[in-house]
């Protein structure tokens, strides 16, 4: 078992084959040299100086990430970016000087007017920090001093698929590894019995957009870094449960026989991959215990249920997933990705958004408080936000009680907490229309660079060579936003 441990801790030592796939990645010169130099590969797997992973690159502030992704793009104007000007100039057309050539989606490109629409939700300042939070989020308002609100996020994408893909993989188009996979690749697992990157999904009643497995795909990285979807039903991990009629000890008995035959065959063939297969079967066996155990929230005391809200007892809800996320974090999962669908309010925004906010408000705040009371907020980075913002003008009929907003990539808000992020600050500013950023813009690449930084990873150094190129999560850009780091 000693050996097993080193395998799971060092992402490069999984097996020999894997080791060499890494090797050919890091050092093109070696591959070429060995053409004429026969003894280059002798001596077994020994790390070489030019190997890319000297990790962590510096002392990490966070050990893990919980990303509360609000899929569909919640409006910044009804949540964290308070714009009284919109009320004052309600119904006026968005000035061209403000729009300044911004392209529009096909949904509002046909509108002849872009009437400014104020927030239906009232705003107030909260905490010592005086952060503006709307009445849709009363619980998040109470943790204002624990979080850092970034009001100056921006992206290039204006449609859901490319925009979510951008946030999750650093590229608008499919094919790159998810950020969770990058973290798993860079940092490995803290746990032998659970995957290092897991995904939990839930859906509100609001207008919703699909999710895709590519969002948690490992792209060109080894597929063991792929996110594992944890589900609320009988099989939290696909194929986790044994069939009816088989007990735990029956399974052990079966596996022991599989192993002993595999061992015989290992001796015969000399293929060490068989040893690795035996180890994977053992891990699977352990997962059959550890996953249901960590997913079992029945052990949580009443006070915790109360903190997260009644929904936390209903499997598959956002609240249950938040509680689940904390348990997974406690058990050493490196990257916990939640998605809550339903934030795409092209119409009926005040109602739908109130409903969506109700789904997530209490549990999001509870997660922060819970981590804090356990002393885990220090090294757990929590992120809350969607894929872009929404327009300051109305989509569809102009009705202050029932309006919609289209997609807006130029400025939107997210918040982060814990894991080396400064608490109780608001970063970045938009203009009085909430349309353009006027101070401290944060691009998705910067956001990724900052998260990586807090995990002890230099976003320019964590690379993987594929198709001849050294790929990074941040592609060729990204600056760490030092002002929001403790």
């Amino acid at each position, binding site marked *: 078992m000693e050996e097993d441990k080193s395998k799971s801790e060092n992402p490069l030592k999984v*097996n020999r084959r894997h080791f060499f796939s890494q090797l*050919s990645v890091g050092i*093109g*010169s070696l*591959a*070429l040299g*060995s053409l004429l*130099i*026969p*003894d*280059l590969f*002798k*001596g077994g797997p020994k790390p070489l*100086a030019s190997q890319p992973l000297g990790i962590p690159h510096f002392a990490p502030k966070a050990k893990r990430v919980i990303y509360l992704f609000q899929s569909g793009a919640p409006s910044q104007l009804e949540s964290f970016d308070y714009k009284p000007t919109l009320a004052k100039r309600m119904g006026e057309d968005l000035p061209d000087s403000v729009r300044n050539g911004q392209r529009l*989606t*096909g949904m509002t490109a046909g509108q002849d007017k872009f009437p400014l629409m104020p927030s239906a939700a009232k705003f107030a300042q909260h905490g010592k920090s005086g952060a503006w939070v709307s009445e849709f989020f009363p619980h998040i308002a109470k943790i204002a001093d624990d979080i850092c609100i970034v009001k100056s996020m921006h992206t290039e994408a204006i*449609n*859901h698929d490319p925009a979510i893909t951008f946030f999750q993989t650093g590229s608008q188009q499919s094919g790159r590894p998810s950020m969770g996979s990058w973290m798993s690749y860079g940092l490995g697992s803290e746990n032998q019995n659970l995957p290092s990157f897991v995904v939990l*999904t839930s859906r509100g009643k609001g*207008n919703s957009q*699909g999710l*895709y*497995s*590519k969002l948690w*795909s490992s792209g060109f990285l080894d*597929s*063991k870094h792929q996110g594992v979807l944890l589900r609320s039903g009988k*099989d939290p*991990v*696909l*194929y*986790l*449960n044994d069939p*009816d*009629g*088989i007990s735990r000890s*029956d*399974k052990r*008995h*079966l596996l022991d*026989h*599989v192993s*002993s*035959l595999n061992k015989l*065959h290992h001796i015969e*063939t000399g*293929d060490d*991959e068989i040893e690795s297969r*035996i180890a*994977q*079967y053992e891990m*699977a066996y352990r*997962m*059959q215990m550890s996953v249901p155990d960590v997913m079992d929230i029945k052990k949580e005391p009443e006070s915790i249920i109360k903190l997260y809200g009644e929904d936390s007892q209903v499997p598959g809800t956002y609240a249950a997933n938040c509680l689940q996320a904390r348990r997974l974090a406690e058990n050493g999962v490196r990257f916990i990705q939640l998605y809550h*669908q339903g934030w795409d309010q092209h119409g009926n925004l005040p109602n739908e958004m109130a409903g969506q906010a109700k789904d997530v408000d209490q549990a999001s705040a509870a997660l922060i408080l819970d981590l804090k009371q356990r002393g885990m907020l220090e090294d757990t980075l929590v992120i809350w936000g969607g894929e872009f913002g929404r327009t300051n003008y109305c989509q569809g009929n102009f009705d202050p009680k029932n309006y919609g907003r*289209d*997609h807006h990539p130029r400025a939107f808000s997210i918040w982060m907490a814990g894991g080396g992020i400064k608490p109780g600050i608001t970063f970045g500013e938009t203009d009085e229309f909430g349309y353009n950023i006027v101070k401290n813009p944060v691009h998705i690449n910067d956001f990724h660079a900052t998260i990586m930084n807090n995990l002890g990873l230099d976003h320019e150094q964590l690379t993987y060579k594929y*198709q*001849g*190129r050294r790929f990074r999560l941040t592609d060729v850009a990204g600056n760490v936003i030092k002002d929001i780091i403790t």
Partner: protein
Amino acid sequence: MKIKAIVLLILTGLIALLFAFKSGLFKAVDDEYVSQKLPDVVDYNFHIKPILSDNCYTCHGPDANKRKAGLRLDDEQAAFSELPENPGKFAIVAGKPNRSLLYQQVVSDDPKQIMPPPDSQLKLNSYEKKLLKKWIEQGAKFEKHWAFIPPKKADLPQNEATNWGENEIDAFILEKLEENGLSPSSKADDHTLIRRMSLDLTGLPPNAAQVRLFLSNSSEDILEQAIDEFLASPAYGERMTQVWLDVARYADSHGYQDDSYRSMWPWRDWVIHAFNNNLPYDEFLTLQLAGDLMPNAGMEQILATGFNRNHPITQEGGVIQEEYHSYYVSDRTNTLGKGILGLTLECAKCHDHKYDQLSQRDYFEIYSFFNNVNEKGLRMDAVQAARQKYFADAPYIEISDEETAGVLSFINKPEGEEVKVMVMNDSMPRKTYIFNRGAYDSPGEEVAPGTPDIILPFSENLPKNRLGLAKWVTDEDNPLTSRVFVNRIWGMLFGKGLVETAEDFGVQGSLPTHPQLLDWLARDFVEHNWDIKYLLKKIMLSATYQQSSVATEEVKKADPENRWLSRAPRFRMSGEIIRDYILATSGLLNKEIGGPSVKPYQPPGLWEETNAGGNRGVLTTYVADEGDKLYRRSLYTLWKRTLPPPSMSIFDAPNRDICEVRRQKTNTPLQALALQNDVQMLEAARVLAQNVIAEIQPPNQWVTTVFQRILIRNPKDEELKVLENYYSDALDKFLKEEGNAEKLIAQGEYKNMETDPVKTAALMLTAQVIYNLDETITKE
């Protein structure tokens, strides 16, 4: 035989030891690379260019916009020129490393001088520095990139050992083995060999009759006969198609967020037909790239062009179609690059290629071939499309009973139904511009269709359309097409190509381990009229292919990656082959060919949890099929891009959003769970147990029979003992727990036979032990 092997082994060991001494392996060293011996003659392509490319080209390579200090190292003339920012100085002076700034700066200690600069995170090791020095001393000769030089058949190497080898391939392999102090393994045993060949050519285990025939026949050409039989089986076309579907990014859904249904499966039926008819590879490509433009193009030729409509198409509301249109055209361009030419063309979309001599202009010249299709993107959102059964975006062809009764008889279409398949046409000529930074809304200079001269000049006689492009691609002087294909076939058989980066034959890709063999195979393939079956047979008749895959400790140490092929590879089968294998060995496999894709078992709720809510589109809820549709080969499993069949994804299948030519072969706990608990697997174990109980007497033959059916060999005594013990333990258990036996054998839809539940359950679990063995899911 055994003594011979031992002598060989000792010899190998001695030689290895000698090498180790000679190269200073036992000396104390201060740098991992110091002890490496420099080659007598430094080769530009194999030694120098990889160093320059990996470390220098980003700033001193083909990309004119990012070039620093006016220095360009990928081009001979430029590399020897006077440095514009350093008059009187030169990066390279042939024969004079001390006057070559390139070398001076590479070995400099001054952080302001040293190259690559420290902030690049790149660094040359001592060996690389010495290589550069020696190369300059020897005259700093440049050469065209190896993959851009047309392949030639070299003379067969004369090797010391003369008692091994079946054909030309072996001469090349043996040469490298000898160079590396290795020797080939003995031939694999007959059981292994027939299983290997069957898996490679049909993706299925051999059937009992084939095994019997093969083992009982000792004639010299029995191997050849077996290969011919596998090649003639319809399963061959399915097997080859399976691999091509990854290249062609085939799916039954449109991709992107709503990811609704599309009907491209008749195109897939055509591919099966093409492989089974052994359509030469050049024609196979020409039809797919430009079938519609061929003289007298008929339905079949047009159908083949569905290849270039297999890319994802968005149905998201509010998209700017022009943006997505540019994605579609790029996708075709990139697929030509990765799938057919082995080039990372997409790297030249936003700027000149950083490593290969491909400009952004080159990219858009190729792009323009694919830019004339009268397509607007899906004109309906998923909801409307579902209502109106709008499953194909124009242009498309409609296939009715008339066609399937005639020219398209190979399509397995349900009678009476019409099906639309998206195809290519050039009815909407568009101007193509170089997009600044690759952005669709930032057009620059206009370009005309063309191909990079560095690969092969586009002949004046060719039309400047996709047909001309296809002719250029399949020109026998095109240095890439044949190499890339034979390399992939090699990779299919050996687990990895002679060029490991099958997707990248550019300067940053891996170099071939056996360049002369690759070239010989490529030429031979073209000389034999691009005959795919010929190519497969050629490789499979080599002694190299027929070696045993057993790896001794010595040989593992000497060549852990098995680069030199002193043994046959041993690797896990793909998810599709594993599932098909289990269906076939259990007796459940439904051998129907082609037709609309099917929905076998899938864990419930997967589509429902991730869809866009409600009933947006067709593929929002998963309802498994019934009856024999549950047992079709895996290439017919309905492929939804945003959530591909989990039993395939878990085994490293790509999602088919983009062209892929190489799958990983990982080994994970999720695979272990799928093999143990997927109902498809459990049901197969149950049905196999019931078949054996019903067919075989006496009962003491049951375990042996199950073993034989799954592993296509007899169990060894020790194995049989373990399994017999297991079976009797299980029998004891279920005798005490009859209820659990009943529960266990309730797995799957397939009718339960009238066999004793206790015995069935015990034998089913025994079958499960065998299905979960590494050997079962491995090609040996």
